[in-house]
């Protein structure tokens, strides 16, 4: 078991008039090597949940276990630093974290903080840059001269370069063009195939269907459903009560079945669907 939440609650601004309960008694287990989607409304506690994984937020009560690390209410920031390297967290719109005057310096910022020497870090930076499909000519450029999509790639490379076992992504494709979003998701899938545990917060159900194997549904600070992607999308009426859409393909199959077809709703790819309908 890679990540485990036990009775985790988190309250913001506790004991002030602005007190806000963001997580309520969350129990969750995420398997090593899985690709898990976290879905739910804005404000349902997704971001709070994922920030527990690398110890940026400590639980108000309960325990989070990440590999050998135990995160609870009494942790000191110092103890949690190695966890930050092991569980890489990419925030929403990560391009805002860039600050160095060259792409290379910005990418090696993370590894250097974790004590990697400059030469090794630079070598790793090249590899990370290649992973996000950018060539080495960008190394010397200023990150502020790049386009929004390129900045996003650099920022993600800045996390990948730390070689985390667990990759946590908060809406990594928000605001990217469809082609860029697809490339990004394929990168994460490739990393997942190499054995990394990937956790992604997304509002795009098509991404969930195409790339993820597990899904966690959150609502008002609680986890209301977990399971494989097929299990989650099995019950469209229930999802509708949470205003969560179905992926286009699953929706299409459900519409067909309503009109007399009998097609397996867990079909994920176009070829299988065409065959199931009776095409070639």
């Amino acid at each position, binding site marked *: 078991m890679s990540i485990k939440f036990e009775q985790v609650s988190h309250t913001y*601004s506790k004991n*002030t008039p602005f007190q806000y309960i963001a997580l309520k008694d969350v129990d969750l287990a995420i398997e090593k090597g899985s690709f898990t989607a976290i879905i739910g409304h804005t404000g349902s506690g997704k971001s709070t949940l994922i920030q527990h994984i690398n110890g940026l937020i400590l639980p108000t009560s309960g325990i989070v276990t990440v590999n050998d690390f135990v995160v609870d209410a009494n942790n000191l920031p110092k103890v949690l630093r190695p966890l930050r390297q092991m569980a890489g967290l*990419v925030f929403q719109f990560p391009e805002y974290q860039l600050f160095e005057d060259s792409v290379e310096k910005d990418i090696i910022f993370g590894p250097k903080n974790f004590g990697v020497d400059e030469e090794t870090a630079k070598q790793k930076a090249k590899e990370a840059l290649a992973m996000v499909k950018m060539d080495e000519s960008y190394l010397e450029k200023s990150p502020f001269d790049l386009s929004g999509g390129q900045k996003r790639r650099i920022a993600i490379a800045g996390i990948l370069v730390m070689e985390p076992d667990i990759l946590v992504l908060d809406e990594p494709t928000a605001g990217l063009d469809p082609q860029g979003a697809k490339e990004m998701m394929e990168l994460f899938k490739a990393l997942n195939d190499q054995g990394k545990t990937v956790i992604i917060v997304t509002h795009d159900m098509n991404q969930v269907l195409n790339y993820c194997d597990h899904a966690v549904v959150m609502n008002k600070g609680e986890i209301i459903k977990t399971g494989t992607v097929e299990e989650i999308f099995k019950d469209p009426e229930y999802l509708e009560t949470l205003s969560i859409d179905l992926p286009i393909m699953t929706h299409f199959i459900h519409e067909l079945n309503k009109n007399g077809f009998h097609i397996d709703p867990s079909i994920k790819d176009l070829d299988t669907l065409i065959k199931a309908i009776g095409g070639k």
Partner: protein
Amino acid sequence: MGNMTLGKYLPFDSFIHRLDPRMKIVSLLFLLISVFFDAGFIGYGIIGLFVCLVVVLSKIKITYILKSLKPMIFMMSFLMILNVFMIQKGTVLFSIGPLAIYSGGLIQTAYILIRLVLIVALTTVLTATTKPLDLTLGLEHLFNPLRKIGFPAHEVSMMISIALRFIPTLLEETERIMKAQASRGVDFKEGSLKDKVKAIVSLIVPLFISAFQRAEDLANAMESRGYNPDGKRTKYKVLKWRMSDTLSLLTTVVMCVGIIVMSVI
């Protein structure tokens, strides 16, 4: 960062909340002036009681006011130590080597501390009971007479309201960037001076970039909606001066004038 109490509006419904912002600003001005007049402990006692009354009426918990004093503790203790030893008035109470504590010094120090506490408490009550937008609306009204001598009343109040509006946004942004950099191994709390400088740079640069970006976006949005500072505009919210405002202002002013007279005599 989320625990900052200074200057936050508390959405309660109380007598103080309902008062006109103009009244509150003018009263604060009078109170601040009278705090600086030396009317002895009796004078400060009266102002202190008055502040307590206002806090009770505003339904703000006293712990909240105390919390807002927290950031001042360092400055206060620094001032206290400095004043106790530096002021050489009155009789010597006791001395340790070259350092001597005088009775006058103790009294002066107490005055300074009381003043600071009163000032912070008063301003906290104002910002906690008045919506930032009402506050600027009040300021604009109060600045208006100055327009005749060419003072840009509307522009100034627009700038103040924009600045106030973006304080929480920038705090949020700061927290977000700090977290993002902490994810890359930055330690904002510990480390050598060099590490700390680096940590601060990794926060300041993105913060400035996004602040400038925001400013530009806001300017564009305002211009595309035809903003013109010289334009004659009507107000969605019109301030209403009520009997309770007149009475409250009168009470405050009478008390302040009393204190000032007391100190002069």
